């Protein structure tokens, strides 16, 4: 059908009539680099694109990308966008680089410990205390949080997570610390937990400039590397109790209260290689203890009777480990539309399950050298222009 050309002026009038929310809706669909370019259009677009209204809308609309990096290669943290369409042969050939950044720009030898609504959380371990950093790799800003006063002797007894509250959208860092009397025997979970002399929980709300003490949870032991699984405004850890049993510790970021609920019922084993992750909007527990990787999902959030086996992935060849002291936890990162699953094999490798061939292979998206060992961080991350400068009482630097 041939359409007559109209006078462009009338059209411009039309577009000027566009309600603000439609403009926001359209611009929020652009890739992150394009948003930066749109800031150059005019002053009002620039103001719009850095308004909290736009940033929140954009964050809510964005499909998270993959953030990947290695502790030993701080100059090469990379963020990718996935192409998730049906009919792709394999996903590791379909991605775009968003940006690359250097964490040395703000802290030497730090570890990536979380991502929440456009911002990243890094920890630098300095003998027995931690320096904590928040950065935005898109705006290239960072802040170092004030010292929280925690000095620890056993890293199993301290954990830190970063998340965003559901209603007030506040970014918070939560530190839980169980102080132990380490003059006594601390070999088992029971020993450790019976030697707890004090429990502390501190919360830092970004923009307040201070740590606040809140009621701590009952003592338990954290998975040493868990960064927490954030969904539904809650952060979850798989923790160990004094009797060696495990439960899910849940922290409500909004109300700052702890609760616990039961994990799936796992087969009995000396090993316990289970980590919590979030897939889609569902809390999942991934069990790597046996010959299959089993991913359980909590079908009804908060109902611990609703755990169901969602995926069972057969391991073969080099992925089966029989040693008793194996610590390798698998963290699924993304389930693609075609049922393929991207996973992090502990902190060592990225693996990829093909739903078509029902097999797992090493993921070639980011070439990892086998000799490089542990220290891999891989997680979903949503890129945003949320400026750290918009948080009051924070002294922001650039990197």
């Amino acid at each position, binding site marked *: 059908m041939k359409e007559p050309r109209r006078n462009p002026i009338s*059209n411009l009038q039309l*577009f000027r009539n566009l309600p603000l929310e439609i403009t926001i*809706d359209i611009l929020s669909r652009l890739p992150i680099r394009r948003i930066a*370019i749109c800031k150059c259009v*005019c002053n009002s677009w*620039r103001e719009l694109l850095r308004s909290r209204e736009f940033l929140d809308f954009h964050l809510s609309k964005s499909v998270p990308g993959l953030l990947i990096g290695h502790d030993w290669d701080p100059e090469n943290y990379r963020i990718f966008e996935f192409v998730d369409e049906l009919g792709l042969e394999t996903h590791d050939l379909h991605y775009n680089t968003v940006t690359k950044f250097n964490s040395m720009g703000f802290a030497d030898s730090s570890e990536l410990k979380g991502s929440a609504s456009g911002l990243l959380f890094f920890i630098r371990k300095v003998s027995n205390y931690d320096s904590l950093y928040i950065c935005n790799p898109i*705006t290239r800003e960072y802040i170092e949080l004030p010292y929280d006063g925690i000095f620890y002797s056993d890293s199993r007894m301290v954990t830190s997570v970063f998340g965003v509250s559901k209603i007030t959208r506040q970014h918070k860092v939560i530190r839980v610390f169980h102080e132990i009397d380490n003059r006594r025997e601390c070999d088992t979970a029971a020993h450790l937990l019976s030697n707890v002399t004090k429990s502390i929980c501190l919360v830092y709300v970004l923009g307040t400039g201070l740590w606040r003490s809140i009621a701590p949870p009952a003592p338990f032991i954290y998975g040493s590397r868990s960064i927490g699984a954030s969904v539904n405004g809650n952060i979850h850890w798989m923790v160990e109790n004094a009797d060696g049993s495990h439960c899910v510790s849940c922290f409500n970021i909004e109300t700052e209260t702890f609760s616990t609920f039961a994990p799936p019922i796992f087969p009995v084993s000396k090993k316990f290689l289970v980590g919590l992750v979030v897939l889609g909007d569902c809390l999942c527990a991934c069990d790597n203890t046996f010959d299959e990787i089993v991913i359980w999902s909590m079908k009804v959030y908060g109902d611990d009777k609703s755990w169901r086996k969602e995926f069972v992935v057969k391991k073969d060849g080099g992925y089966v480990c029989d040693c008793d002291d194996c610590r390798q936890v698998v963290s699924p990162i993304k389930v693609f539309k075609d049922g393929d699953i991207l996973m992090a094999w502990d902190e060592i490798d990225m693996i990829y399950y093909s739903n078509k061939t029902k097999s797992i292979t090493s993921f070639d998206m980011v070439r990892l050298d086998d000799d490089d060992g542990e220290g891999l961080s891989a997680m979903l991350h949503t890129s945003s222009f949320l400026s750290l400068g918009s948080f009051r009482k924070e002294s922001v630097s650039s990197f």
Partner: protein
Amino acid sequence: MAAETGTPTTLTLKSNDDELFSVAESAAILSVTIRNMVEDGCAGGVIPLDNVDGKTLASVITYMNGISAIPADEEKKKSYRDKFLSDKDFETLADMVLAANYLNMSCLMDAVSAKIAQVMEKKSVGWVRRKFGIENDYTPEEEAAVKEEHKWTFEGVETDDDN
């Protein structure tokens, strides 16, 4: 409504340039604006749509008929929407997004917004200004400063201002 009687009810819609269109009520009520009028009993005669011109309304009606003929299969609906929008130029898309907003048709609105964003993806700042009717109110110094602020995002970006 239509389903109750067995004979499809037809509505008459009138564009702001006085063109009249007949459309099955079952398709037209994809528009919440029209559905509310039908439910309020204001649809007996002609429904005037003061913010939509005839050409755009014809296009919207084509969409209404096409999408409502597809059974509840989100993949098929999506591919219909993609095909429907694939040959539309930017000006038409701009008219459509305003019409979809006025008619309160969220699925069309969503698809057109996504399409506009897709078209914008490879365009220069100048193109965006022209098409959106925006005057550059930056001084050269200010514009340079904004670019400098997000320097890395401009590296390796290609633009294609055709169409």
